[in-house]
Each structure stands twice: as C-alpha cells, then as structure tokens.
C-alpha cells in the first residue's frame, strides 16, 4: 500500500476511537503508526490493532463510569435480543394452501418486532434509574444511561430487521397440506442467507411467494406458501397410481407416511408423454397429497419466487420441538 493511502486508512481507523481518546492520544497514535509502517510493520496489522483497541476502548471502563460491566452486558443483551426478535416474533403465515381454509388465520400479524423490544427495554431503564437516579449531579449520568438504552434498542431493532430480511425468517403453517411433516400451527425457520434457488434440491421444503395462477384459497389468502420440491428444472414427471415418476424412475419418498394417497394425479402427464418442467421452474407438491393445492393445480413455480429453504421446525404438534431438515 502506498503511503498516502496507508495514512488515510490509519486516520479512518483512529476516528473509531472515542473523542476523548483522540484528543489525548490521536496525534501521537498517527505518528506512531507512520513510524511503525516505515519500520516495515504491515499497514493491515497496525490498522487491526487500532481497531481492536477502539473496540476495547468503547467497551471497557472510563473514568467516572464504573458500570462498564453493565454496559457490556447490555450490549450483549442487545445482540441477543436482536437475534431473538429477528427469529421469534416475526412470524408470517406460510400458507400450506390446503384446499380448505385454515382456522385462526386472523390472529396472525406479521412483524411484531417493534412492539416486543420496547417492552423488554423498559425494565432496564427502570433498573438503571434506580441505580443512578438519586442525587442531582447524577441526573446527567442518568440521561446518558437513557440515551444508551435508546441506542441499544435501536440497534436491536435494526439487527432484528436485518436478520429477518437477509438471514433467517420464521413462518407458521396455517393449513394441513404438509401433514405429517408440518402440521397446522407448526413453526419453521427459513434460511435466506447463502441461499439461491439454483441450489434447491429434490426433496427440499421451500417457501415461495404466491403463484399467480393459484385459485385454491380465498382472495385474501395471497401470502407465501410452503411445499416440497419434487422435480427440478428440465426433469420429467408423471404419476401412476399413488407413485410419482421423475425422469422415468419411481420417486422414493421416505418423508411420506406408508400409505399416502396421491389424490389428483399429475395432470397432462403419462408414462408415454411425461410433463417436462420448464427451465428455471420447479414442480412442488404438499406432503398431504390428497389435500394439497400445489403444482398439480397451478403448474410449476418460478425459481426466482422461492424465498428460502425450510431448515428447521422449532414448534411441532403444539410444543417446542427441534427438527432439522
């Protein structure tokens, strides 16, 4: 790295320190970095060292503030809270598109995150006030504590939102079309990060946005759906009796109960003229074949409409139950 760029990098890193620290050590720290780099220390190692120092500086105690441990704990709590809020209350219906409408759908309200965090935030404020709020000179400290709590809440909300949008999202299942794998009121965790629809494999359970041709549910039930991927782009599919044939071979379906009637057959497909899934599209079916509105009704789904892959059930049959897929 050439010298001006190295200097700029070090200056940028030094700006991460608290202002008080910079007033005190800033000039010398910049000079020291320049000297070290001149002596052959890699710029990156100097920058990392200062960055780690800045993190420590923010986290450890400063004069007149003995509650550094509490501050750390709050920060950790904020992260934990952010993750929890990102995973748990953000439940959105992943309508399994049962042919019969599911009961209790009106209870579901997506995105209850903002309501949850202030509720957890208030007791903390009260505790802090109880610690600090007695004498007059402490009012400033209390204000700072309040501000800090506010920042933590904001960070937690942002973190929760980020996790929900980009990493993981939970869904609940309002209908019976994936029974017995996913029952009504089950809750699942859907992986969105490090996921592309090109990586979807046969047998994966995926959540995808409502296909345009779906006429099964009532008009207001146009949310996301969850189904199992049966055929990949380019594969052929037909059914015979209760069995499904992919590319001419019978599909082994260990996830189905021993007797699972197919219900309606794969339409417009026979052994002689199987249906070929168009490129970029997926044929999806519900596990409860006889009572599932799926690709047999509205054709294959667009790969780009797949939101994520179900990786985990954490609520099954009305009690907490971890099951990985």
């Amino acid at each position: 790295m050439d010298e001006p760029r190295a200097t700029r990098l070090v200056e940028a890193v030094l700006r991460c320190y608290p202002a008080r620290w910079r007033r005190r050590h800033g000039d010398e720290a910049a000079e020291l970095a320049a000297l070290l780099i001149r002596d052959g220390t890699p710029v990156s190692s100097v920058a990392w060292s200062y960055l780690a120092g800045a993190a420590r500086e923010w986290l450890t105690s400063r004069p007149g503030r003995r509650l550094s441990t509490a501050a750390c704990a709050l920060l950790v709590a904020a992260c934990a809270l952010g993750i929890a809020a990102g995973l748990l209350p953000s439940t959105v219906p992943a309508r399994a598109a049962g042919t019969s409408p599911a009961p209790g759908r009106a209870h579901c309200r997506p995105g209850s995150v903002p309501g949850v965090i202030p509720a957890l935030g208030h007791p903390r404020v009260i505790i802090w006030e109880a610690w600090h709020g007695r004498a007059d000179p402490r009012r400033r400290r209390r204000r700072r504590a309040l501000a800090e709590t506010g920042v933590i809440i904001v960070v937690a909300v942002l973190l929760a939102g980020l996790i929900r949008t980009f990493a993981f999202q939970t869904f609940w299942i309002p209908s019976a079309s994936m029974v017995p794998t996913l029952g009504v009121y089950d809750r699942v965790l859907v992986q969105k990060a490090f996921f592309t629809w090109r990586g979807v494999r046969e047998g994966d359970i995926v959540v995808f946005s409502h296909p345009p041709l779906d006429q099964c549910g009532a008009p207001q039930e146009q949310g996301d759906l969850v189904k199992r991927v049966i055929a990949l782009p380019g594969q052929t599919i037909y059914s015979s009796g209760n069995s499904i044939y992919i590319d001419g071979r019978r599909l082994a379906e260990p996830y189905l109960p021993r007797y699972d009637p197919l219900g309606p057959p794969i339409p417009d497909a026979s052994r002689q003229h199987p249906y070929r899934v168009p490129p970029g599209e997926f044929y999806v079916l519900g596990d409860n074949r006889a009572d599932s509105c799926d690709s047999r009704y509205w054709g294959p789904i667009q790969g780009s409409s797949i939101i994520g892959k179900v990786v985990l059930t954490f609520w099954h049959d009305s009690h907490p139950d971890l099951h990985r897929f």
Partner: protein
Amino acid sequence: MAVSGRDGRAGQDVLRRVGEASVLILISLADGPKHGYALIQDIKELAGVELGPGTLYGALDRLERLGLIEPLPADDRRHPYRITATGAAALRVHLDSLERVSAAGRLRLQLGGI
C-alpha cells in the same frame, strides 16, 4: 487512592490482573520516561514482544488510571510517560511474586525429574 481500587488492599499484587502488556510497559518505563514509539521499540528489544499500537494506548490509560504511571508535558506530538513511586513499588511486588512462582516451577521440574 487509585491503587487501592477494585484490586483491594495495599501490598497486594495489583499488576496480577493488568495483563502482560502493562507489566512490560512498566518494566520499560522503570529506567526512565518514554513515549509510545520508544516503548514499542524497547519492549521488542527487551522481551521480544511486538506490542500492537492499539494495545499500547489501552495499557497506558489503564496504568495511568491506576496511578502507576503519569504523563509528562508533551514534547511536540509525543507524550512521554514516567513511572510513579506507586508504580515502582507495584512493579517490585509483582516481580517478587513472579520470582517466587518461577523458583517454585523450577524446583518442581527438578523434583519431577522429567
């Protein structure tokens, strides 16, 4: 007093919990005041440890807060530090305890005969 803070009673080894970097800084300052860059060079020479600049300032602040070192008037951009009497005493206590531990360790190795 700053020294008898959280670390407890006087005469106790206050340096036990401050970390290797702080002890090395104190040792380096024991023979005279130094500023940041000189400290890093000196510590590299005397202990073979390359102190990161980020670690350095954290340790200096902590030592100052404990009253073990004090800043001298700035010389241009450089801020030299000097060990205080408390700091020298604390360093002595710490080195004594290290010596006891190292003697005990050597003895045990001898007794073990490995």
